[in-house]
């Protein structure tokens, strides 16, 4: 299986403190990979470093490879042009711009040989709510609508791989599964996704592969079915008595 995004011994330091320590990770084409871990394990730092993006000024070491080409030296907007699209945690859209304007900000690249740029119709089919809110400003949207808009913007840019940082934050539990299920549909259509998620139960129900991050390093890695049985995952995140995983479609307890 060919890899669409990979990093080799990626290390991120903030003012001398190591937040991500020699992480090696691989997103195979057409798969959904999850990164799980506790608060402060370095999940967001990792996914931001993959996109070459940060609110602070971290030092980043290690190689990031997108579709076989190294992108480590490129700034965030160049990586975006090449199809590495990050939807950051929290505020991922411009509140002062309308839904339409937010979407128009993204320019669909001219060369999309092995990529698919989502057209308006496809996006509205995926998120019908957005069509109704087309002329509303970003600030007028609900948390879920904002998240949908942020993802839509990324989809318009013809992603090779979509990086989602905690899309569930601020959403009602029912919406979380709904959203992740739709992301799963996109993967089944051929998109590759790297998902960082604190809601481990929900994440495990949709992803193919899982990386468990603790204090900046990968402590376990494997297919989702195996990781559901993994002792560390079960103890820390799922709870002993509750190993049953909710099916994607069923209502969340």
């Amino acid at each position, binding site marked *: 299986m060919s890899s669409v995004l990979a990093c080799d011994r990626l290390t991120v330091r903030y003012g001398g403190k190591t937040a991500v320590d020699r992480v090696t990770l691989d997103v195979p084409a057409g798969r959904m990979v999850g990164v799980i871990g506790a608060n402060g394990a370095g999940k967001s730092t990792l996914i931001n470093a993959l996109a070459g993006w*940060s609110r602070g000024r971290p030092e980043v070491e290690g190689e990031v490879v997108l579709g076989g080409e190294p992108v480590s030296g490129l700034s965030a*907007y160049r990586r*975006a042009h090449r199809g590495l699209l990050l939807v950051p945690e929290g505020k991922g859209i*411009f509140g*002062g711009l309308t839904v339409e*304007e937010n979407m128009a900000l993204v320019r669909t690249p001219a060369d999309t040989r092995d990529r698919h740029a989502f057209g308006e119709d496809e996006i509205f089919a995926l998120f019908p709510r957005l069509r109704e809110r087309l002329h509303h400003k970003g600030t007028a949207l609900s948390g879920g609508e904002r998240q949908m808009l942020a993802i839509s913007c990324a989809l318009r840019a013809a992603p090779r791989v979509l990086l989602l940082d905690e899309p569930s934050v601020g959403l009602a539990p029912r919406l979380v599964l709904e959203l992740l299920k739709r992301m799963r549909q996109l993967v089944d259509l051929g998109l590759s996704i790297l998902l960082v998620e604190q809601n481990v139960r929900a994440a495990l129900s949709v992803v193919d592969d899982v990386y468990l991050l603790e204090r900046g390093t990968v402590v376990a890695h494997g297919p989702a079915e195996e990781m559901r049985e993994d002792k560390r995952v079960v103890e820390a995140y799922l709870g002993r008595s509750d190993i049953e995983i909710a099916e994607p479609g069923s209502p969340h307890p």
Partner: protein
Amino acid sequence: MILVQQFINGLVLGSGYALIALGWTVLLGAARLVNFAHGQLYMLGAFVAWFVMEQAGVPYFVSIPVSVLAVALLGAFMQASMTRLVMEQNLTSLMIVTLGFGYMLTGGAAILFGGAPQTLDSPLQGMAVRTGGVWFTLQDVLILACALVLFAAVWLVLNRTRIGAMVRAIAEDPKLAQLFGINAPLVYLGIFVFEAATVALAATLVAPRTPILTSMGFEEVILTFMIVVLGGIGSVGGSLAAGFGLGMFTAFFGTFVSPAYTTAAAFGFVLVLLSVRPKGLARR
């Protein structure tokens, strides 16, 4: 009749003020940047036009694009050297750096163009229209027309185009804009070049009305600041209205009260306004 005449004067003064402030309105409102060298760029715009008219003997209307281009290039250079500060949104340092640039320009222009007052000659300045006891020049008409056209164009670009949306996006969150594939430093460069170019254009249009000196520029910064605050920081339409308001005030206060203290009086008003509303007369 004097009222009508002062109304016309106010209209012309105001459109001149608004033109001078236009670039800054976009710079400050849309990009959250400041440029204290704004007044010196105005000075330079007038002097470059004067210089090429004197030295190369080119006509006034050719000197305008030359001056705009030269000052735009200078603006690009300034912005390129400040990119790091801009991306860090280090406003304190940016203010001081642009002040330093302004001071360099004052010194450089004095060496290059000499310390004597000069006149930028526009053929339209000599063409006066007299009708029914009031008069104005064709240059005045040009200033008014340019102000209206430029403000309309900028409003349309900012609110109706992808470039405008990009500028507003950058103003809101330059980091996030990168994730949308936007090259933020390039957009900043564009905005800064636009600011420099429009103030140079304003200078070539407005300066023929008065003698020009290399030491000028401070008054223009204050005027611009007052317009931007009165207009509601960043509001293009507001700036145009504020420009006209300030022009009217200058014309009437100067005629009926005291020409020496017009700026002081206008500033007093802005000061009171700011102590009540620290962010200016913004929409909300």
